[in-house]
């Protein structure tokens, strides 16, 4: 270990080819050229093979061995531990933990071995390097600036003098620039309003999907649902009873069908009848609201059967069922659309028409 102490004399250039130079002298010459001054560079131990050094070396060796050992555990577990998922409390549940812990311990031990080596065994060092920031010398700035202007003159000035070229470049550049952007923009643009019925304003309950006949309400497995299937104080998620009605193809269609208690139903009906669009939409004590929150589109389906509130779990908007599902708390600003309910000849629920309000999160051009 070489011990260096701060010398006040600035270092002088030396001849590195001089055979008398030691390796450290040559290193110092390199440092001088990089404007580095070593203030301190000394062993952290007193004398060679001191007790303290031996202890540190022992610890580092131990860490390396721990790392290797943990890596072996990882490999052994990776190969032989049962890893296929099984239900219940099984050996395989510990596969990922064993991999994680063994790899973690292995890497951590390796890291600490390296760190301890760098920190404890390598000589303690304080170096100072000069830094140069700020602008380049003024003549350099001037030269580069003038060169740039010169180039500009040659190109731009040349075009200025030759009007034909100017026009031609303009004619070429503009279309070519658009060509670069066109495929991306053109390929991605989709008219959100195309289609009949317009997808933004219709759901799977639109009779179009059922040859003009009212669409039945169906469970997630497609079976239709009757009034007596829902107990008082109960609710069911229903979908349009059409092919793929319960899939994400009709992501705006999920609806919450609620069987209210008689007195709550009375109040709900009173409020619904007073509303232009919701009038006549209830069937007996049953009411159906779109499950898609008018705020951000999550299913607002946390139905509290005593307080008659619907809560959306994403942003905590709360809707009061008895009052046309008006929002009463949270960020939602628009009520949940009500599905006009009816019952067909066979006694199954149908949607008399599509939702009369726009379903789903709000947007600019919603009427």
């Amino acid at each position: 270990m070489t011990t260096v102490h701060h010398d006040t004399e600035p270092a002088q250039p030396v001849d590195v080819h001089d055979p008398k130079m030691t390796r450290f002298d040559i290193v110092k010459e390199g440092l001088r050229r990089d404007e580095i001054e070593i203030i301190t560079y000394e062993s952290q131990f007193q004398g060679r093979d001191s007790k303290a050094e031996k202890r540190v070396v022992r610890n580092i060796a131990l860490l390396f061995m721990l790392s290797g050992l943990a890596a072996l555990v990882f490999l052994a577990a990776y190969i032989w531990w049962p890893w296929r998922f099984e239900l219940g409390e099984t050996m395989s549940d510990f596969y990922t933990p064993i991999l994680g812990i063994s790899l973690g311990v292995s890497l951590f031990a390796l890291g600490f071995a390296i760190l301890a080596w760098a920190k404890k065994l390598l000589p303690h060092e304080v170096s100072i390097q000069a830094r140069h920031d700020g602008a380049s010398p003024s003549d350099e700035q001037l030269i580069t600036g003038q060169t740039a202007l010169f180039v500009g003159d040659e190109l731009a000035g040349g075009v200025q003098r030759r009007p034909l070229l100017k026009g031609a470049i303009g004619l070429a550049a503009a279309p070519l620039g658009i060509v670069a952007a066109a495929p991306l923009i053109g390929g991605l643009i989709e008219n959100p309003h195309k289609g009949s019925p317009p997808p933004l304003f219709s759901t799977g309950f639109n009779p179009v999907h059922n040859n003009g006949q009212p669409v039945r309400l169906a469970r997630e497995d497609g079976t239709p649902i009757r009034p007596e299937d829902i107990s008082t104080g109960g609710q069911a998620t229903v979908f349009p009873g059409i092919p793929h009605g319960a899939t994400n193809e009709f992501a705006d269609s999920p609806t919450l069908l609620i069987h209210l208690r008689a007195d709550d139903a009375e109040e709900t009906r009173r409020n619904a009848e007073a509303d232009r669009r919701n009038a006549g939409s209830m069937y007996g004590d049953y009411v159906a609201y779109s499950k898609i929150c008018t705020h951000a589109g999550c299913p607002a389906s946390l139905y509290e059967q005593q307080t008659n509130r619907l809560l959306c779990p994403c942003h905590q908007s709360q809707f009061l069922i008895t009052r046309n599902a008006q929002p009463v708390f949270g960020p939602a600003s628009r009520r949940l659309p009500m599905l006009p309910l009816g019952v067909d000849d066979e006694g199954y629920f149908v949607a008399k028409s599509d939702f009369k309000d726009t379903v789903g999160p709000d947007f600019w051009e919603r009427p």
Partner: protein
Amino acid sequence: MKRRKVDLAQAPVAVARGTDERFQAATPLRALLNKVFPDHWSFLLGEIALFSFIVLLLTGVFLTLFFDPSMKEVAYDGPYSALRGTEMSAAYESSLRLSFEVRGGLFMRQMHHWAALLFMASIVVHMARIFFTGAYRKPREINWVIGIILFLLGFFAGFTGYSLPDDGLSGTGLRIASAIMLSFPIIGTWLSAAVFGGEFPGHLIIGRFYIAHVLLIPGGLLALISIHLALVFKQKHTQWPGPMRTNTNVVGERMFPRYALKQGGFFMACFGTIALLAGLFQINPIWLFGPYRASEVSSASQPDWYVMFMDGLVRLMPNWQIYIGNYSIPPLFWPAGVGLGVIFTLPLLWPWLESRKSGDKRIHNLLERPRDNPERVGIGAMAFTFFLVATISGANDVIADKFHISLNAMTWAGRIGLIVGPPLMYWVAVRICLGLQQHDREVLAHGVETGIIRRLPNGQFVEVHQPLGPVDDHGHPEPLEYGGWVVPKKMNRVGALAPAIKGFFFPVEKPAEAPVSPGMPPVSGKDREEIGSGR
């Protein structure tokens, strides 16, 4: 032909010479080997992000080998019995397969997810360090801007990755993303239709997010991280003020051997931490969430933590809808559209805003202790309080449920906290800074409290102070200038104990010998004397 004997000992020399003949590498390589880096624990926070990113690349490549970014409906038929026979997208099915049917696949997936969380967490912590120490000042404004863009890219990388498995939770997130796009005035519906290829959810979004997640965004991250590091190299790292440290030098260790070794060790520690997290804590159990269905949702539906501030702002927004004729702007637009824009634009401009206000156009290579710039600390405290309240509000339903608080009360607390909290924390932070400054000045003027009480002849008790600099004829310390350095507050720090206690938060090169103030010569071991009662 006579075969020449190969001298193995000379082989490295020959290779080195050959390399240099072709690339002239000797001089730049020496400069690299010799480059001096300052040493401080807080300079390692950004490294965590770098190392997490490397882990993300490694584990991410593994995951792509098994993931199928398709929304085609398939029926699951794997070992996870609770989903057998369930219709799901191929993306979700392949995510389940790589979790349960690929040896170590679940571990890799969890490592990837934890590394992503750690990446974003370390970016925020690193950014806080940069901000509170003023490291973004000239000449490093551009690197600050790159850092903010890195956070933004990480935000989108995280969100796209969260969406890829197409499980019940991520589908809900996608639905909200679509609603946010819809909320933009005028272009909303067109924007959503362009991104999703028609109405939500369509059949394209996973494929599009996949290419963004594995190519476009990581490409941007990689490029910007390279520039970020190159600029740190070119402009040299900032350093704390202290003995020998000036605005025109760097005091520290050379890159080789010690500094690089420490970096390598720290990389292993980061890697190990991520592996430990992945083994100890289950993350994102997609098999419980089921495939995404527009009708299904779970209580406590949240985005990952670095998106939670946005979700929190959305939750706290009052239901103000603005009507303009037949058109309207939904309340979702303000927190998610405008809010996100402002939250990223303001920090982007901050270095110039500050220098414009202070009129300071000088180059700063020395960091500022937070206490020396109370206004900056106050503004930082405001920003972080805002971020924190918004993030906590993003989980307000979980907090309400687990701590038995009313959900509505949590929302109101968040709304009030978002407005009252930041100014309050500004005031608190400024007061704390001023108090710390005051204490520094007191110690410089009177010396360190020794804890020794002396009784004066008139019966009065006074505490003996150890002056940090020279004393005048009456034994009173001469006032010292504050130099922006750490001022020792305890006798241990000025070498009252032998051996001195090791530096912990602030590394002390040589605590027993380092000059403790500009005007004081170094104290060596032999002229250190025990502090007595003075008698």
